[in-house]
């Protein structure tokens, strides 16, 4: 579904991504892990279109995304759950979800999506009229994921959903993500710092380090490989 080939992104003189190649097949759960500054968020930005690559290509369902402007990409079915939640603080929970359903596909399936989201995250139903800015970190993360689901996406991209969350809350979030993937066959691309959690449920994993893919494989192979640990702890 998503083919990233030799992608290169640079910010000024800073090489954020260096010939990165990642493939996400339909219905797969792919995890990209790596320490801070490895380029994970840059990868997402390139897929979303808020950053232009200087080399390589991104093919989505066979089409080159370079021709598609950023505001158009969600309409193709790419949902981006951004780093740090990025909810709309002054809009209510329900309104945030409505914004998620801004795309045509989202609007068509709005009722079903809403039911699904509220079933997955009952606390959002409780707080539906509350301003999103007043929710706790975990609740905001649920809202952000719900917002992503509301667009009835084909590809769900999650950028460090565990960031800033207490471990138990993060665990719960990961469980839900797994559930979404399992029960609905949604294609998931997950980027995470917490390696073990990320690799647990993935079909395929990639390890990024300073902008390069240094390893790839199934979650078993990656978890067992010492190089992953080295990438993080430098020893």
């Amino acid at each position: 579904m998503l083919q990233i080939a030799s992608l290169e992104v640079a910010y000024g003189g800073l090489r954020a991504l260096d010939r990165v190649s990642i493939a996400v097949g339909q219905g797969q759960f792919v995890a990209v892990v790596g320490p801070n500054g490895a380029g994970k968020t840059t990868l997402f930005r390139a897929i979303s279109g808020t950053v232009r690559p200087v080399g390589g290509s991104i093919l989505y369902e066979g089409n080159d995304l370079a021709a598609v402007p950023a505001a158009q990409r969600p309409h193709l079915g790419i949902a981006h759950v951004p780093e740090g939640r990025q909810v709309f603080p002054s809009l209510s929970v329900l309104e945030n979800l409505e914004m998620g359903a801004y795309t045509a596909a989202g609007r068509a399936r709005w009722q079903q999506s809403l039911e699904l989201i509220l079933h997955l995250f009952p606390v959002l139903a409780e707080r539906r009229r509350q301003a999103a800015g007043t929710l706790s970190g975990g609740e905001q993360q649920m809202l952000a994921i719900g917002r992503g689901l509301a667009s009835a996406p084909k590809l769900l991209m999650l950028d460090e959903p565990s960031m800033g969350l207490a471990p138990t809350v993060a665990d719960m979030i990961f469980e839900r993500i797994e559930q979404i993937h399992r029960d609905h066959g949604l294609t998931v691309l997950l980027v995470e710092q917490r390696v073990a959690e990320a690799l647990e449920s993935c079909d395929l994993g990639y390890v990024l380090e300073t902008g390069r893919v240094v390893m790839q494989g199934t979650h078993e192979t990656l978890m067992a490989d010492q190089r992953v640990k080295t990438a993080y702890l430098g020893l």
Partner: protein
Amino acid sequence: MRQSRSLARDLAAIGAIAAAFMVVLLLTESGYYRLILTLVVIWATLGLAWNMLSGYGGLISFGHAAFFGLGAYTVTLAMVKLDITPWIGIPLGALVGMAAGLLIGVPTFRLRGHYFGLAMLAYPLAMLYVFEWLGYQEIALPMKREHPAAWMQFSDQRVYTLLGLGLMVLAMLASLAIERTRFGMALQAIKQNEAAAEAAGIDTWRWKMPAIVLSAGFAAAAGGLYAVVLLTVTPQSVFGVLVSAQALIVCLFGGVGILWGPVIGAAVLVPLAEILNGELGHIIPGIQGVVYGLAIIIIILLAPEGLFWRLRDRFFPVRPQVPDAPAAAPQAAGRDAGRLAATRKPLLVLKGVSRSFGGLRAVDNVSLTVEEGTVHGIIGPNGAGKTTLFNIVNGFLAPNSGSISFDGKDIVGQKPSRICRAGMGRTFQIVRAFPRMTVLQNVTSGALVATRHDSEAEALALWAIDLVGLGRAEAGQTASGLTMRQLRLLELARALASRPKLLLLDEILAGLGHAELEEVIEAIRRIAASGITVLIIEHTMHAMVRLAERFSVLDHGALIADGPPAEVTRNPQVIEAYLGRKWVQRAADRVA
């Protein structure tokens, strides 16, 4: 500071401009054109005045008419009510203006961004209404039949132009003085990034106040002369929005932040507007406003910094000069890092430091000690509170509880500039270099806090540049168009130039390629060897492991490990923080 421009050349240029004006003056026959010329120099002076505060300092004022108008009314009322000649009235007006600048500056500088501009807009308008209410709808300066010269009344228009020229030259000299000294450099630093300037030891207050006072004084003097030339003053003509707008536009159009800019702007726009008004004013009233409006729209869209910079970049790009002055190592450089480390004297001690934002505990009861002469690393996953901790240590944030002592003294609650002067330097993640200045000049801005004389500052800067490994040729390049490596080394040198005892490095290695990383690591090693204590935040463990003798690991704001690298990286809590609990479990399972 301006190595690339010699003083003699600048003075000669000023002289040439003055001479050119006088030649044009001699050639004009009609009073009409002489008046235009007089207006050019008056508006140029106002533009120069605006430049002093808003061009150099970045504090955009939309209300310079306040000072202009006060100057005009001082001269007028002094003459009408108190029988004081404008020869005294204009300097008096300048003083009134300066006082107004002081009074306005004190409260208004506390405002940021939009609010500052809006407040400045309000002052002249308020004054306008007050003066109208006071009954001064229109005051004319009385004609003096006897000794008109003593009352600054001349039958030959050209004398006014010469007076205006004199004032303009004075303003240009003042601008030159600002540009060439640390005053200008401090203002530039404040304009670029006020926070970074504070951290570099620049007491922003101490520079902003003189800037507004000087600016107001010249603006008021220009207003005073304006009153004398036009002979009538109405509130609208001197306090009105068009006056403030003209000050701004003349400067932005010609070139902001440089003394030639307002002169160019006035020389182009004033005759254009006046002549068009003269020719077409009766068919197209208000053509003046349209000219100024269009001028500013075009400039903002096409050449936002003004004509001067656009032309200079295009036709006279600055060639790099290699500085060959000797570097002067700072006095205390004789310290030996090894000896210092052996003494294990604590330089920075944090005890129980905590800080929350709303409900979020960003820093949670952190206690650590950084020993003199060591390289100490702070590491942790994203969002662990590292940068917040730095901001607290540096003085940008106050901790909710806990104590911090630096070199034996408690520093909680002190301003960053003061902490910098006490010997703490810091680099910032986003390097904001002055793009039009050379690397050397950029680094010198960091040396201001540690030196009294500008020449000392430069020598110190050269030492810093040599130490970090930037070549002398690189030092002469302008800062725009530097590679990432050069920018990082520049930032490092700038922080070094303040002669710190403790250097805080905020992710200085982020995003560097392999070779570049090596270089910067080497530079940091050299710095540490010279006796400076280093506290470094980093993401890349690889580099940290090679640099730091001691690590503190933060997670969710709390300290979870503290010790030498080998120990810390084997600590299960650390592993859990980075790789997750399940990793540790699995590792345990595998062993079991």
